């Protein structure tokens, strides 16, 4: 399937701060992509650029075949859920369903009612009187009611308890599956930002990792897992390894060296024990590359940093 999101050199600067620099990513259609990275890495900025809520300082994005923009036809294809799921505090879920019905050419209000009654969220209570998790549920249901081709969700899991998270992700996977079965080529693509790697692993099959306003990783999760390995061995020089493979992270204690490497062929040196890396280890490995505090956190730990500029 062709890419639904394709950006090249996407950059966003606010007065002095560079929120996103030189972001080049590609997300194939029909995927559920996890957008991860430390706070302030530029996740929200990227999502807002893709949703057409902000304009890039440089670079460009092609989303669903066009540039993200304030245009009814484009907006109709985008389901955007902002951080903290903003809703009108004094308005009920039913009011929001009405608003959506009047502002969208395609709108499935019934699906919102069904979804909310399943999780027992009252339709007639003002959003301000709902719990944070309930509000997030309402906001997600409203986002899905647009029946968009692309869902952009900014930390939709943050406000949810574990059970609600499970339901939320279940609903998401279900929506993706249902829409994927729909009209030819009408599959749902999702980009969701989150800090919860365990949850991401359950539903996502694509990963975008931002750190220090730059893209560190972008690709199929299965492929990323296959490409990365944890090497453990006695404390020794790593230049030989570095000649063939890319060392993402190096942890050195008095006796032992642990490496996260991106493989470029088999590891030949038998001194290294080679283990598969899980998603969390990969994500943390890349995130720590850009964390200036990391090297001082633990004594005896050295950071093999190719760190990105802030």
């Amino acid at each position: 399937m062709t890419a639904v999101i394709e950006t090249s050199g996407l950059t966003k600067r606010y007065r002095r701060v560079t929120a996103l620099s030189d972001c080049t990513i590609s997300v194939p259609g029909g995927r559920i992509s996890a957008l991860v990275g430390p706070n302030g890495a530029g996740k929200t900025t990227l999502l807002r650029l893709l949703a057409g809520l902000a304009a890039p300082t440089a670079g460009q994005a092609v989303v669903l075949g066009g540039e993200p923009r304030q245009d009814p036809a484009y907006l109709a294809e985008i389901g955007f859920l902002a951080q903290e799921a903003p809703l009108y505090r004094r308005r009920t879920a039913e009011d929001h369903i009405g608003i959506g019905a009047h502002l969208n050419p395609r709108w499935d209000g019934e699906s919102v009612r069904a979804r909310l009654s399943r999780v027992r969220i009252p339709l007639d209570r003002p959003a301000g009187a709902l719990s944070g998790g309930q509000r997030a549920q309402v906001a997600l249901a409203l986002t899905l009611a647009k029946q968009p081709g692309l869902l952009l969700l900014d930390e939709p899991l943050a406000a949810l308890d574990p059970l609600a998270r499970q339901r939320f992700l279940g609903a998401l996977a279900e929506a993706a599956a249902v829409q994927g079965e729909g009209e030819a080529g009408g599959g749902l693509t999702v980009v969701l930002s989150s800090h919860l790697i365990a949850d991401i692993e359950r539903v996502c099959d694509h990963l975008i990792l931002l750190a220090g306003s730059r893209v560190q990783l972008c690709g199929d999760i299965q492929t990323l897992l296959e490409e990365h390995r944890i090497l453990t061995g006695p404390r020794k020089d790593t230049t030989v390894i570095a000649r063939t493979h890319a060392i993402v992270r190096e942890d050195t204690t008095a006796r032992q060296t642990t490496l996260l490497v991106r493989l470029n062929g088999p590891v030949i040196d038998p001194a290294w024990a080679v283990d598969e890396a899980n998603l969390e280890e990969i994500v943390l490995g890349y995130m720590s590359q850009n964390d200036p505090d990391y090297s001082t956190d633990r004594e005896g730990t050295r950071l093999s940093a190719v760190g990105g500029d802030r």
Partner: protein
Amino acid sequence: MTWVTWQQYRSQAVFAAALLAALAVVLLITGLHAAAVWHSALAHCATGHSCASLAGSNLSLGSPIIASLVVATSAVPALPGLLWGAPTVASELETGTNQFAWTQSTTKLRWLAVRAGWLLLAAAVLAGAVSAIVTWWSGPYNALTADAFQVNRFDVTGIVPVGYAIFAMALGICAGTLLRRTLPALGITLAGFAAVRALTALWLRLHYMAPVTAYYKLTAPFTPPGSYLLVRNGFVSPDGKPAALDYAVPNYNGLPLPAACLHAMQHNPNPQTALSCLAAHGYQGSVTYQPASRFWAFQGIETGIFLLLAAALIGIAFWVLRRRDA
């Protein structure tokens, strides 16, 4: 979008309508009373041929509290702009709901266009309704005291309140869009509205048209007919030089007044003595004013000024919203 706007302002609209109705009832009752008093006074004075002195008599048309309430309606045009205009964009940005509103299939510019359109109309209708009632209510008062052109009357009657209200609404929307926060936007709207209103009412309005100047003998004081707008009183020296001067204030610095008259002015509390002295030395009185007949022309000019300002502010709001990230 219209439906959405109505849904969000429904309760405020009902509240405003209720307040308007209450004001209408109060002014209807007191207005009918004032009209009755005025007509019976007219009938009474006609029999005694004393209607000319009616203005000088201390005829009371009603409670001064209600009269103050009517003067206070000069605040009405500011209210929709403050309460609905300033928060319209700012509160969305503050709560982040703009991210919900502007990612439905409606662009932010269309969102603002429909919303601003209805709000401007609502402000105009509200101010127009209050002004219509107040204009009717003021009839007997204007007839008695000929004050239609005075600041407290001109500003609450006719069509100017509609212009003020549209301006205040545009200012509120623009300030809210620029500042992105409701409270500062409220402050700027209030301060801006008060400043522009004061500037026009107290200074600019005097200059909409070239004023008329009348000269008169100081021994026979002259007052322009009807409800004129005073620009200034003064004297004219024998050689024809105008000497702007308020002769109620004993400050004649720099004026080429005869020494004898200055002495009389400073030491004789009776202004008549000084005036006689000035007249004897060939001085004339002058009054510069805008005639009563220009009332509606001035109403039109002032309304036009406020509408132009409003258009510029709305333009700025759209420009800012278009250029800036949501």
